[in-house]
């Protein structure tokens, strides 16, 4: 059995905010609500997207970069222990510079990977998106909500149609 999908559209972030608040107040779960827009709606982002784990990705990348950079600089120096100018074979400062760059490089790459994974990119787009892509680019905000039944969908649409937005399913 297919889950009924309520589709609403509006033009401003305020309107979208009101609709989302209404849907949440009617016990629609955040994970069942999808908002598609051409620009970020900061007010809704935190509510609907859940906690981000991006900082963990960055820290993991940086930690791995430190280990990789230090290993590369220090262990290869030990592999060929050439003592030049009375300086130590494993010189902390030069190895530190290599470590720093390696840390930054892996932090960047892990941020990108985290963004791709957390943002659920590299996946097929929803069919609904294809249908409304043009209007989204032009500024319309489309809200989809998975609801329990057609009756609930009608109820919610009616509640929303108190003057805020145009709606369609």
């Amino acid at each position, binding site marked *: 059995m297919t889950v009924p999908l309520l589709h609403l559209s509006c*033009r*401003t972030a305020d*309107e979208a905010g009101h609709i989302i608040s209404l849907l949440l107040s009617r016990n629609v779960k955040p994970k069942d609500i999808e*908002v*598609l*827009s*051409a*620009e*970020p*709606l*900061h007010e*809704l*982002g*935190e*509510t*609907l*997207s*859940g906690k*981000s784990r*991006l*900082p963990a990705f*960055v820290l993991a990348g940086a930690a791995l970069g430190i280990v990789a950079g230090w290993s*590369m600089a220090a262990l*290869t*120096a030990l*592999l*060929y222990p050439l003592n*030049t100018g009375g*300086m130590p074979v494993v*010189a902390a400062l*030069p*190895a530190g*510079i*290599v470590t720093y*760059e390696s840390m*930054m*490089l892996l932090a*960047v*790459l892990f*941020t*990108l990977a*985290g*963004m791709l994974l*957390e*943002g*659920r*990119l*590299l*996946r*097929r*787009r*929803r069919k609904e*998106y294809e249908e409304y*892509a*043009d209007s*989204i*680019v*032009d*500024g*319309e905000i489309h809200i989809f909500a998975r609801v329990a039944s057609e009756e609930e969908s009608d109820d919610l649409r009616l509640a929303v149609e108190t003057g805020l937005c145009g709606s369609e399913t």
Partner: protein
Amino acid sequence: MERPHPSNRQINEDLLRPILHTSWRFYAATLLLGLSLLAAVLAWSYQIHRGIGVAGIRYPVMWAFYITNFVFWIGISHAGTLISAILRLVNAGWRRPITRCAEAITVFALMVGSMFPIIHLGRPWLFFWLIPYPNERLIWPNFRSPLMWDFMAINTYLIGSVTYLYLPMVPDLAAVRDRSRGLRRKIYSLLALGWQGTATQWNRLERAISIMAVIIVPVAVSVHTIVSWDFAMTLNPMWKSTIFGPYFVVGAIFSGIAALILAMAVLRKILRLEEYLKPLHFDNLGKLLLTMSCLWFYFTFAEYLTVWYNNEPHELVVFRSKVSGRYAPLFWTMMAGNFVIPMILLGIRRLRTITGTAIAAFTVVVAMWLERFLIIVPTLAHPRLPFVRGTYAPTWVEITITVGTVAYFALLYLIFTKLFPIISLWELKEGYRERRARTSLAVPVAAASGAGELRP
């Protein structure tokens, strides 16, 4: 009265026009720049075929035009990512139309700049020996060498800058995808990574951009600091300096802002972006350029004063060759271009117009190239042992390669503006929305469908 902001549809039409429609001017410019690049490739091929001797570098002046270009372009690369990241971090609203122009400069300047150490090599086909990989020679690169730090830093900065350019571009690539058909649509679909614009995607994108902005600033600072250490780690006169790191970073940001202003002035004219790149942006960047000019002068003064005051004979020979000797015309041109002209054009409010700012930016770009040249060549021409003094004059090979790489940079930039929106659509729309919310202005929209219109 403030003019109404353009609607979302208007923004899409204005900024996607250069991508969806191509004029003959684009092909003409591509041809012209392509020919210049071809001339540079032929000159380089000639150098590879005949040997590095066809360049003007002679012992003891073994670094000259190529390394000047390397330092210059790496400096220019500080235009974008660093400026864009700082403006993002301080949430400067006026940054929105300029960030992508700036970020693209960084990527292409790095691509051009990083070519020069390879061009400078006698056997450029062995450049991969710099890459740390387990190899049949059983020797790894020397990580204690500043040249190796350069390699690490520039690669990190290039990868970071490409990522920092690409991430904010994903929603705009999706917009191009949704506005195009056929093969173009397929290509942009791949580039847009399946972007839909869900709340989660926006949230994660903004977080990723913020994180990248925090990461990229110290990377950018480290890159030019390390480039300065290529010189400062030696004992050569007027190179061994503790302030070379910050001096180079300041110079890099200075020349970077100038390059950004120049690029914006050209784009504004060619792509008819007057609605988006406004006098305010040039005024703000002009003030920033003026500040950097003062800072650059302060560092230059500090550097030259200490050398003169120390009265160390080897240092003074180099100092005099710059200030009153063979290189004096270049030195005083540099001072005029980097300090005197910007002071006049940017310090006097009436002159700080778009044209005035662009002229000041042009003189800064030229003068900063001279500054790099004056750091490198006079020192090498006057080493500590007086019997090996030398001179340097560039050959046609070096001049052709230098001019050709400028054309290469312009060509890359031109192609970029053809393939991608040079102004971030979504950031611009977001900015207008925030401003509308602040001023509570209801703005009419030209579009018949009324998309993007604020309802009462």
